[in-house]
């Protein structure tokens, strides 16, 4: 409801702004000020909508966790090469790489590969510092926890929170395109991990294939965001690069069977039990094509 309300306001303000452009005014100076003010208001509402959609997208750690729980073996060959760090020169590229390394860090942490984890942590620190957002990632605490073999869940949680803080700061500083780059880089990398693990699997992993197909929902949200940012040159290029993947995901369908929820109290917590099911339909040919396309896309993006 809130999001819909904001979208209505956004469209109303955008319409008002556009109609104002056609009006004849006596003072040019006054016109410019008013237009800038209206444009700023329009952008502020758009930022809120963007922020809400970004908030609705799961962090890469969730997909990495599903990959791990599927019983797949760890493979560092599928991770993004840290030697490429110096090749990321623009803010946008750095954002993409930061998102990707964040996804890799989550994957590595879940498999408790402390040594590799520290390498990725250093990589993230360098790129985050280059983007002037390194202060929001608690590197020292994570390193200390990793060195002392503390709960991997705490390390993963603090890392995820660090990315949330970076995102909030970027929103505050109106650097939404960098937030988008981090989001897309993280999503593409986590999808890459999932499809590669599935590819390397000797027998078809039904659960993992289903998770790959379900990414259609998150990809839908990303496409909405890309549409909002259609005036951003870097993101327009990303949208173009993602066209083939979009057409492949159009072949995936998700259906639902609903059932009523039942609740019960366990140790002071309300537990909800529901048997509503989502059923993913993805054929082998589409899955293979998605696997190939994610590889191509990844090479283009970071």
């Amino acid at each position, binding site marked *: *409801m*809130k*999001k819909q309300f904001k979208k209505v306001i956004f469209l109303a303000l955008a319409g008002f702004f556009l109609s104002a452009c056609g009006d004849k005014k006596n003072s040019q100076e006054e016109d410019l000020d008013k237009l800038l003010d209206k444009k700023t208001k329009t952008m502020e509402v758009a930022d809120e909508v963007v922020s*809400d959609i970004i*908030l*609705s*997208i*799961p*962090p890469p*750690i*969730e*997909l990495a*966790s*599903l990959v*791990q*729980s599927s019983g797949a073996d760890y493979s560092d060959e599928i991770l993004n090469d840290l030697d490429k760090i110096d090749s990321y020169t623009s803010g946008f590229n750095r954002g993409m790489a930061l998102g990707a390394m964040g996804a890799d860090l989550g994957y590595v942490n*879940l498999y408790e590969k402390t040594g590799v984890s520290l390498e990725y942590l250093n990589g993230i620190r360098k790129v985050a510092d280059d983007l002037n957002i390194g202060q929001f990632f608690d590197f020292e605490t994570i390193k200390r926890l990793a060195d002392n073999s503390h709960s991997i*869940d705490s390390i*993963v*949680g*603090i890392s*995820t*929170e660090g990315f*949330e803080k970076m995102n909030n700061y970027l929103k505050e500083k109106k650097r939404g395109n960098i937030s988008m780059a981090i989001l897309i880089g993280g999503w593409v990398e986590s999808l890459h991990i999932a499809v590669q693990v599935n590819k390397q699997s000797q027998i078809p992993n039904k*659960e993992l294939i*289903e*998770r790959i197909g*379900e990414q259609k*929902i*998150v990809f839908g*949200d990303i496409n909405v965001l890309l549409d909002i940012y259609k005036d951003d040159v870097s993101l327009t290029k990303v949208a173009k690069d993602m066209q083939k993947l979009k057409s492949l995901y159009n072949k995936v369908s*998700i259906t*639902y069977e*609903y059932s009523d*929820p039942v*609740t019960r*109290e*366990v140790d*002071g*917590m*309300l*537990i*909800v*039990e*529901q*048997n*509503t*099911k*989502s059923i*993913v339909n993805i054929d082998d040919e589409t899955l293979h094509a998605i696997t190939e396309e994610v590889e191509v896309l990844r090479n283009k993006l970071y």
Partner: protein
Amino acid sequence: MKKGLFLLTSFVMILISNITMSQCMDEKLKASCSSLLNSFIFVKSFKVDSGSTEYSYVFSKGTMYMITVCDEAEENNKMVVELYDRAHKLVASSFDKKTGKHYAKIGYPCSATGVYYMKYSFKGGKPGCGVSVLGFKRN
């Protein structure tokens, strides 16, 4: 003299109001809400500083989620979260109408991947201040 006192009172009230607003954004409230997650991994935090706020999130099948609800403990104005599925059908509420009990934690083992909606409001109907944290558990 009276005018001066009035201005001073107004200034103090504005100052108190600003402090209250800034406390709503306080990291301490978020931290205490995160601590309720126990063995669940932090995923996202949601700030609620108005009468009614709705956020959406893509929940994944096979994942156990926990939604924690924390407010400023203002009497008769507790924060409530209602979870709705993709069809906007109510799945659960942190407030049990039958018993009048408020739950600070909702556990949801998701069986259907999709967009879910978390609608936050305050029981007293007044604007309030709260934080909600979403966590997940590895299988």
